[in-house]
């Protein structure tokens, strides 16, 4: 059982690491869509991280009972619920903002600058 847990811990750690790395990479991209996806991945990573701050346990009861030797830490679960709700709202907000920026600035570049691809799109739009 102990072995199982330690390999599980390694797996979770790798998952959080990969999610964070992908999130950071995407958040640094120049267009709003990858940035939004990157921020979402970052929030997934941090939610998972918060969830396991109570440590990985197997078969422990959720609430304190007199007979139980130990119990699963309830606080991280409450924290991660709060964090999920907040990150969900924030993601919804930034998606709307990205759409508004696309409409107002005429490009999905994060700095609002037109680049070669936008120019091509604009030309295509005129012809079509």
């Amino acid at each position, binding site marked *: 059982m102990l072995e199982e847990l330690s390999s599980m811990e390694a797996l979770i750690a790798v998952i959080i690491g990969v999610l964070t790395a992908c*999130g950071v990479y995407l*958040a640094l991209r120049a267009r*709003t869509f990858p*940035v939004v996806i990157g*921020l979402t991945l*970052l*929030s997934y*990573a*941090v939610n998972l*991280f*918060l969830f396991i*701050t*109570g*440590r990985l346990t197997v078969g422990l009861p959720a609430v304190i009972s007199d007979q139980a030797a130990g119990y699963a830490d309830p*606080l*991280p679960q409450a*924290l991660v619920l*709060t*964090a999920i709700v*907040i*990150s969900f*709202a*924030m993601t919804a*907000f*930034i998606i709307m*903002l*990205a759409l*508004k*920026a696309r409409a*107002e*600035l005429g490009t999905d570049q*994060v*700095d*609002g600058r037109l680049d070669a691809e936008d120019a091509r799109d604009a030309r295509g739009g005129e012809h079509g």
Partner: protein
Amino acid sequence: MNHEVIAPVLFPLFAATLLLLLRRVMPLRTRRSLNLVALVIQILLVSVLVKSVLGGEILVYALGNWPAPYGIVMVADRLSVWMLLVTSLLAFFAMLYAVRGTDAGSRHFHPLFQLQLFGLSGAFLTGDLFNLFVFFEILLLASYALLLHRGGANRVRAGLHFVALNLAGSTLFLFAVGTLYAILGTLNMADLAVKAAATPPENLGVVRAAGLLLFVVFALKAALIPLYLWLPAAYSSTSAPVAALFAIMTKVGAYSILRVYTLIFGAEAGPVANLIGPWLLPLALATMAIGTLGVLAAHELRRQVAYLVVVSVGFLLTAFALGTEASIGAGLYYLAHTTFAAAAFFLLADIIAMGRGTLADRLDPGPIIANANLVGALFFITAILVTGLPPLSGFVGKYMVLSAAVDLPSMPWVFGVILTAGLFGVIALARSGSLLFYRAEGPIERTGASGRHAIGPNWGRLLPVIGLLLLCVALVVWAGPLFDYTRATAEQLLQPSLYIRAVLGEPQS
């Protein structure tokens, strides 16, 4: 139980709900008055709290009557109440300006304004690190919407950067909080202070890393170098009353730095004591220097004021970084002054911009604006305040910080940077003032390509500016008792054991 502690948090939430529900039933005029009345009540609620903490008591409010550290607590000490007082006064004058037309054109300006106040009050009063995160998110979400109020390409562009950066900041905040909880097993700030002081050596590295990660988050909120880049664009593109209210937003970061790094990682914290000691002073001084360059280089008045906010953050954190009772006390006095002065300047810049038609606030010579004598005089007074020339409160604050630094080893650096930044600030504002008011030429271009009309100042718009300037005058007139208060605040902060005992009760052993 002492319910006055939670009243300043709950009341704005109540007012926001009320304003939201009454939108369809009440005309805008009534809702404006209602919001102003709510802000006056907020000031009164905070004043009651001021009276309670004046003698140095630390009031603890346990939500649901769960004892700390198991339940969530709100803690009102001198520092929290001082911040609340500054916030509520600032909010009143910002709203007084907003009801002159800025609030039209968006349905939810009034509720959002109150929600922003809700988040701010909560962040100042909470005694729990995770709750600090939650209140940060509340005030940020309200601030996103306020920042984008009435739209426009510039606002959307600046808003996108602001939101994306703060989302990344929130993620870092959660990583730091999670790490602290995983190692120390608590989120109550007082309990964290006890546990952090007793960190076993094998966990020391992780706790330090989490502490420094928290510093990165707070530095982002406070706009400390190199994380200040979002501020000038966001503050200079948003509407004037919102920018004025945002003058307190950077101070939330400064407050959090002061709170966490005197309480949890303060001088009494054993192995993790003075965690950010080596970082804060150089970063704060560099922020002042870079901010001053921005002030000199700015092409628009509002951008210049935004860079002046960066400079004031650098100054404030320099005072906090020196870490003596006198310097922190002086810093807190300066905090009130700089918040009011920056807010007044943002409002005034808006009045000037409206009076110049298509030129707006660009620093190019243009036509004489209507009522130039009065507006020019107000500009002159504000510039004196902001650059810290005698006889107004900027000078008093600056003098007190400098006199606190005289005996410290870092004296040459502190004096050098502060005085040079002050000189360049004077030069930059003198240039702006003469461009705006002396080198006036040509008739007012009433309508231009953008269709902007030149609107002269009226008393309704000037009144909030004058009110904020009078608050700064009051800071000078009552400088003695106020400095006594802020100094006592610093004394209280530098003895974290007082806070810990108030929250957790007497040690059992």
